[in-house]
């Protein structure tokens, strides 16, 4: 593997943006030392063979600011993020760890609120916190509270021929339908609005939600699914660019088919963001054969977290590795990978 030299001698905020700079950081600093076949796909979770079964294993850190935002808080977020990374690999979430880095002086009431939120969300998502760690750093050395989690899930159907262990970009085919389970950009704009002090009417609310139940419902419907990805930093745009590159195929989505709330569109216009490139925490993009799309869509729409699910486009053979948008006025243009720091500390 080529290891491009980092072009900055310091870590920049943009290196955490989930876009091109993050990719550069991973490819030039981390992979040259730590690369191995399990890590290499750089997917949401690693798939591990254990005895007869397959386990999905994931980790994430949460540094969102502010800690509490409309629709959620860092506690709910850390459970949802962990669960969703497992769910998109077709894995039932079982266990998670909880590492807390606390800032000296954090109000105990805030910590209690976050922990209660973790408890509620974990129960709802069917995942158990089974190990943990707590560190406290001096005042000013972290911003209130950071969380790190790891999650383990059992890949369903691993013992059957229709194993979900094959879910991933390598299974995407030309002609596949591209589906999302609802409105784009809600989480990012809710956090951003709270942080910037700009209020919108109606209030923007994060879509933060654990998606395993939704995913299980869709998989159980019998719709054959090729791949899923949860939409976090960089939103749908980053996911499509990433999967186009990983699958070596093209993606074509239609602007008029994208579900975006008017309030989110308005806030994006005002602040200069593209809804497609703004973070979600309760949305997935699903790839399945066009013939299976109606069934998948019906299953998604029958679930409370998928009521606004929509087919937004299709996978094409060419151009390879590129995502395209058919615009409202019928033009066509590239969907770009968001470059770097658009919204720091969104999750």
């Amino acid at each position: 593997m080529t290891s491009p030299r980092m072009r900055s001698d310091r870590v920049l905020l943009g290196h955490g943006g989930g876009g091109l700079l993050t990719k550069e950081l991973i490819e030039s600093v981390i992979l040259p030392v730590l690369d191995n076949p399990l890590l290499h796909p750089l997917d949401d979770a690693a798939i591990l063979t254990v005895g007869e079964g397959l386990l999905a294993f994931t980790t994430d850190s949460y540094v969102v600011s502010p800690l509490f935002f409309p629709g959620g808080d860092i506690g709910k977020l850390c459970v949802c993020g962990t669960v969703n990374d497992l769910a998109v690999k077709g894995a039932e979430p079982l266990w998670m760890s909880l590492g807390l880095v606390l800032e000296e002086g954090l109000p105990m009431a805030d910590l209690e609120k976050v922990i209660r939120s973790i408890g509620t969300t974990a129960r709802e998502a069917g995942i158990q916190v089974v190990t943990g760690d707590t560190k406290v750093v001096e005042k000013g050395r972290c911003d209130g509270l950071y969380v790190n989690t790891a999650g383990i899930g059992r890949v369903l159907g691993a013992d059957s021929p229709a194993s979900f262990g094959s879910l991933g970009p390598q299974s995407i085919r030309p002609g596949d339908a591209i589906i999302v389970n609802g409105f784009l950009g809600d989480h990012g704009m809710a956090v951003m609005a709270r942080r910037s002090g700009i209020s919108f009417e109606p209030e923007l609310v994060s879509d933060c939600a654990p998606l395993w139940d939704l995913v299980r419902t869709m998989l159980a419907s019998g719709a054959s699914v090729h791949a899923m990805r949860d939409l976090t930093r960089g939103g749908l745009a980053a996911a499509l660019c990433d999967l186009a590159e990983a699958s070596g195929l093209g993606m074509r989505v239609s602007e008029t088919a994208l579900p975006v709330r008017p309030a989110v569109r308005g806030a994006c216009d005002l602040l200069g963001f593209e809804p497609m490139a703004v973070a979600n925490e309760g949305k997935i993009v699903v790839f399945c054969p066009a013939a299976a799309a109606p069934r998948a869509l019906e299953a998604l729409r029958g679930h409370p977290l998928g009521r606004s699910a929509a087919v937004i486009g299709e996978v094409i053979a060419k151009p390879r590795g590129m995502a395209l948008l058919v615009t409202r006025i019928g033009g066509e243009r590239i969907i770009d990978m968001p470059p770097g720091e658009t919204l720091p500390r969104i999750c």
Partner: protein
Amino acid sequence: MRPAGEQTPGARLVARIEEYSSRTGRTVRLMEVCGTHTMVAFRSGLRSLLPERVALISGPGCPVCVTPNGYIDAAIELSRLPAVTIATFGDLVRVPGSGSSLERERANGAIVEVVYSPTDALALARADPSRSVVFLAVGFETTVPGIAVAVRTARDEGADNFMILSALKTMPGPMRALAGGGEVAIDGFVCPGHVSVITGASVFAFLAEEFRIPCVVTGFEDLDLLKGVAMLLAQVAEGRSEVEIEYTRAVGMEGNRVAQQVMAEVFEPCDSEWRGLGTIPGSGLALRERFAAHDAAGRFGLEVRSAPPASGCRCGDVLRGVLTPPQCPLFDRACTPATPVGPCMVSSEGACAAFWRYGRRPA
């Protein structure tokens, strides 16, 4: 759903553009002066709908892009002073100066806050009187009134720790330079809608009268821009040169008098350096003497010097419409949004960023 056979508004405008284009029988070069128009043209896919003989070229209307290196260097110098907070619109953070960028200075410990309005910067100054908050005042007539109000409020409140470093500019100067420069043949100007809300469309009259160049003040929705292009082509096809307004819901001939007054109260015209265009007399705005307490350059004894652009960077040529971004030897090689060499690749309104993000040819 639209009944089959009925055309969408977009398709109707595209058909009109094709008709006028064939009536002119030649290549027509239209300059969209404003960076927001450049971005809309790409993001909406509009460029993919235009006939080959209608060329949209980007002009000098992206505020971050036309800000010269010397200003960035001065901002970096300020950010290194103790007890100085830099407050800026986001794009400027990543623009490389001669040896560094505000992004790098921030990684080294400088306090650089991204704000969405000059009022937010003033709020930072109020919140911590022990620090000097310097707002990087970059932009055109659109942003000037808001900055003028912030400065006036700071003076009234006695918030002497709020300052601006002005690189504010006005639009007619560079358009005159381009129209009279003879370097690029421009058949029509897509005039900036937001600037015109403040100035009124009449500031472009000299272009139509003196230089016989059609002008259409255009809004920022995809359909606005399509209609603006159609109106310009109609003028070209019919041999007219007038100032027309497409963006009638926001723009009149006279503009916003209140905004003009507050601008004139706080600022006075000065000579200003533009990247790519050099120093244009009277095209900048400096704080008037009675607001000198809020002038960061004066307060810190800082001289904004002229500095050469980065080696090989052709942003200046791009801003004059002489070069399209892909013609620059650095484009998509040394210069990408992740590793920008010049401001046109950084700014969300920059022509190079727009080309890179949306205009690369599918493989």
